[in-house]
């Protein structure tokens, strides 16, 4: 039994606060981060820890981690298709692996193995492409056959009820799930401890730009002077970029998910099927956490639809026919900021002092540490970090898209 538990026996006193509530906004900050989700808090953390920049305000219109950080299905992996993507997410996975130590906070980082099922020859080709690119960069990733899947997930119906049988899969042993909230709290606590101010329930209403340069931020609690603003707001990106006077390719589509009632553990791995549009893992609480594809139409809302959960349930029974009596307890949605090439948009922009970290679509949570780290470096040095150079907004002007779309029809 860990000693930490025994300590609780002798003291009923709560631990120190994770984050403080600053008295009010100050007149100016060196850096203002818009968005108190995982990315914003991570960036604040690394600005303070790695670059000694602590005169930082994180402005969050709701509460910490209340956006997509708390709405995703918590999967972490690096088996992307493009070299740019693989290098970037590999760094993220490495950071994730040490995060609990860094934070002294258990984020329940749990390597469960990640199967992306292929039901068609075309999907098998894509799996091989990904595996080859992954292996090139030293990522643990391989194409496996039906027998290997059957051994690892014996309860799954590889025939999927008849149509579209599973032909094979891409297997990624380091694929993990994490307690998503804890990631945000750990970064928040670490940033707060180092002097960063986290202002919840503070809504940004305008960005002041004078002669192509950021001079301040307007909020519903007053105006702040600053020369550096980072937009890390996922689903609210178009609203914020508009304030800074720039346009981007980003459009917002809802991404829905749901959980079942808890049950005793039976599913140890993470299962994704692009063809069936489902992904599922079982949390440490025993709930099945499930998601599917993006909603087709633009929408700035986190409403749920019945069609989503009906379709998901239908496909889940193809894979796991015995689930008929398990019950879906809760469904929800996040707002995914989609780009045309399914790769993020990061770094400096045409407005001096305005930095963007967006285009996170359905893969933002797994990029939390690396985004925070590279954006902090970029802001501290006013130069795009090497890992994010391919993700600049200007790539669209040059028709130099990142080819991630090929693998990301259901990119979880």
């Amino acid at each position: 039994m860990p000693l930490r538990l025994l300590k609780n026996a002798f003291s009923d006193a709560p631990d120190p606060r994770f984050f403080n509530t600053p008295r009010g906004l100050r007149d100016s900050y060196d850096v203002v981060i818009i968005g108190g989700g995982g990315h914003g808090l991570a960036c604040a953390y690394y600005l303070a820890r790695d670059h000694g920049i602590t005169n930082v305000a994180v402005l969050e219109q709701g509460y910490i981690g209340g956006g997509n950080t708390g709405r995703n299905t918590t999967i972490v992996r690096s088996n992307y298709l493009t070299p740019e993507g693989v290098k970037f997410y590999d760094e993220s996975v490495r950071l994730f692996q040490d995060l609990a130590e860094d934070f002294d906070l258990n984020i329940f980082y749990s390597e469960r193995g990640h199967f992306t099922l292929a039901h068609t020859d075309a999907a098998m080709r894509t799996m091989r492409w990904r595996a080859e690119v992954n292996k090139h960069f030293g990522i643990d990733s391989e194409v496996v056959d039906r027998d290997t899947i059957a051994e690892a997930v014996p309860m799954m119906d590889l025939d999927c009820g008849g149509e579209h049988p599973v032909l094979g899969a891409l297997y990624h042993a380091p694929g993990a799930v994490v307690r998503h909230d804890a990631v945000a709290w750990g970064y928040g606590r670490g940033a707060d401890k180092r002097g960063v101010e986290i202002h919840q329930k503070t809504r940004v209403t305008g960005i002041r730009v004078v002669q192509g340069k950021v001079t301040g931020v307007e909020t519903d609690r007053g105006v702040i002077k600053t020369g550096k603003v980072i937009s890390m707001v996922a689903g609210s990106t178009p609203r914020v970029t508009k304030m800074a006077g720039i346009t981007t390719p980003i459009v917002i589509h809802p991404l829905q998910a749901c959980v079942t009632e808890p049950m005793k553990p039976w599913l140890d791995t993470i299962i994704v099927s692009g063809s069936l549009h489902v992904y599922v893992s079982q949390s440490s609480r025993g709930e099945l956490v499930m998601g599917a594809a993006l909603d087709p139409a633009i929408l700035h809302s986190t409403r749920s639809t019945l069609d989503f959960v009906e379709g998901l349930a239908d496909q889940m029974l193809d894979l796991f026919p015995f689930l008929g009596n398990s019950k879906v307890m809760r469904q929800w949605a996040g707002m995914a900021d989609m780009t045309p090439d399914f790769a993020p948009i990061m770094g400096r922009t045409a407005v001096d002092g305005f930095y963007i970290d967006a285009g996170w679509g359905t893969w933002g949570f797994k990029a939390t540490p690396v985004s925070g780290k590279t954006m902090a470096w970029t802001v501290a040095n006013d130069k795009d970090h090497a890992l994010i150079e391919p993700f600049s907004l200007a790539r669209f002007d040059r028709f130099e898209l990142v080819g991630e779309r090929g693998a990301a029809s259901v990119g979880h």
Partner: protein
Amino acid sequence: MKLIHCPKVGTRPASEFVYGGLWRPMPDPDSTTDMEWSHYVFHRDGAPGVQREWWCHAPTGMWFVAERDTMKDEFLRTMTVAEAMKDLAHG
């Protein structure tokens, strides 16, 4: 499931409709710069608000234009493509 009003077919459940993205007049390709063209191709006004969009009633193949509040997911009105064009010419 939402109901959507097609100007020709009438009101039907959303599952019968296909979303076609924002309704955006194309700039003259011959007189735009490369930069302007790339912005037309890739950039979008993605901010929430009332947008004009392409929708198609799939069983009939009827394309039409809808004004939709992308914050509330409310269709304010739908019109035929001809009506939308006329609207644009006058608007």
